[in-house]
């Protein structure tokens, strides 16, 4: 378990790097991070349930313009890690659903709470960029590399710190809830999971449709076609 915790915390740092400072290869997307967390904790089923929910809601969270998007890099890792840490503490299957619900909520809350942190990071980087230009003009050719690597190290450290705090807080605050209220929580999961999936899919549909009737028609045909294939093929 200790290795899984350590791995999750480091993954939080790597996801924070991938989200903006390094690469933007979608390693930071909740489905990818939840899968990696699931492999670390050896429970991919619960991890993917949380990952799918967070991924669908994150899919429409876009880093465009002046808007600071929700921090799903840390949110995805924290959500899946909290769910798996809670699930491993209980021997019952019901507790897995309760853990998935609380993990998803922890992930969503962390994503929202991460926005002021991202803003703070960007304001700190303003000082770094001013320093870099001044050093360059003063004749220090290495200032660019120093500023770049300082930015990377800073983002990684913030990612690791946020994931550690989120995981510790989540397990400490939500552990007793899973232990005593797993039946109620698993009922809540049966309602919340489809509602969240529906909410997320609606955002994705909106991104694709863009109020074009032809695309809505493609959606309808695909839905009916796939439904018929599944029903007929399933029998």
């Amino acid at each position, binding site marked *: 378990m200790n290795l899984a915790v350590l791995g999750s915390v480091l993954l939080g740092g790597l996801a924070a790097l991938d989200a903006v*400072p390094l690469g933007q290869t979608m390693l930071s997307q909740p489905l990818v991070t939840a899968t990696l967390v699931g492999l670390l904790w050896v429970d991919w089923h619960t991890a993917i349930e949380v990952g799918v929910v967070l991924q669908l809601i994150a899919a429409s969270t876009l880093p465009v313009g002046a808007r600071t998007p929700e921090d799903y890099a840390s949110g995805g890792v924290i959500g899946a890690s909290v769910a798996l840490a809670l699930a491993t503490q209980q021997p019952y299957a019901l507790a897995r659903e309760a853990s998935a619900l609380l993990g998803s909520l922890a992930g969503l809350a962390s994503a929202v709470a991460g926005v002021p942190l991202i803003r703070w990071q960007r304001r700190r980087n303003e000082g770094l960029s001013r320093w870099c230009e001044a050093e360059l003009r003063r004749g220090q050719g290495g200032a660019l590399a120093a500023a770049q690597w300082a930015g990377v190290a800073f983002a990684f450290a913030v990612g690791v710190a946020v994931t550690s705090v989120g995981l510790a807080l989540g397990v400490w605050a939500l552990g007793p809830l899973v232990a005593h209220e797993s039946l109620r929580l698993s009922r809540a999961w049966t309602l919340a999971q*489809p509602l969240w999936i529906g*909410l997320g899919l609606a955002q994705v549909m909106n991104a694709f449709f863009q109020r074009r009737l032809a695309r809505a028609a493609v959606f309808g045909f695909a839905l009916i076609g796939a439904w018929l294939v599944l029903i007929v093929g399933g029998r």
Partner: protein
Amino acid sequence: MAPLRRRDLWRMAFRAALLQATFNYERQQGIGWAWALEPALARFYPDPALRRERLAEHTAYFNTQPTLASLALGAVARLEERRAAGEGPDAEAIARVKSVLGSSAAALGDPLFWFTLRPFAAGLGVLLAPAGPVQGALALWLCYNIVHLGVRMLGVGWGYRLGPAVLGDPLRHRLTLLTRWLGVLGAGLTGVIVATMLVPGGVPRPIVFQVCLLAGLGVGLVGAQRGRPSPTEWALGVGALCLLSTVFH
């Protein structure tokens, strides 16, 4: 003066991955841009003092869609080559071209990468996620990165070869077409996802699941017409309601 070698172009492409390492509200990608352009400037300006002066100019404000920034990098490297040879634009003209290239790349890149390819890759990942432990994540990652890493790695070379014309009509037409067809495919993919959510493996889900999924879709479609509350805030509200409903059950 020797033109950029293939090795220089690769170094610029790899450095473009750090375009947003010091992303901030004042200069946005400015420092990352200068860092990515450094291998080209090192080739064109053997005098370190002059090179540092040029680098300092490039730390000014710059912002665009990060994948297509590679094309702009290559194009500006071509301009800097002409400037170093004494036949090209001055600092002001390069700043103007940079600004135009940044806006054009964002206008093409945002709809393709953020509004279409990212949700498409996410949808593909979600569709394949129940198939096994890594299938969904792998599909998402590969689907996005075949285009993203391909353009990032090769884009610097294209930009350098064609100069500022790289973001002209032919590329614009191709990217717009790709965005349009990916949008149509995405609409179909979403239909398939909804069907597999309702009847996975041909077995219908419980009626509560189906009703809640449709309710979520309805609320989400209405909510998507307004900027606020954000989808995450909607999801938090829905989660809190579900928790409350079980408390009073």
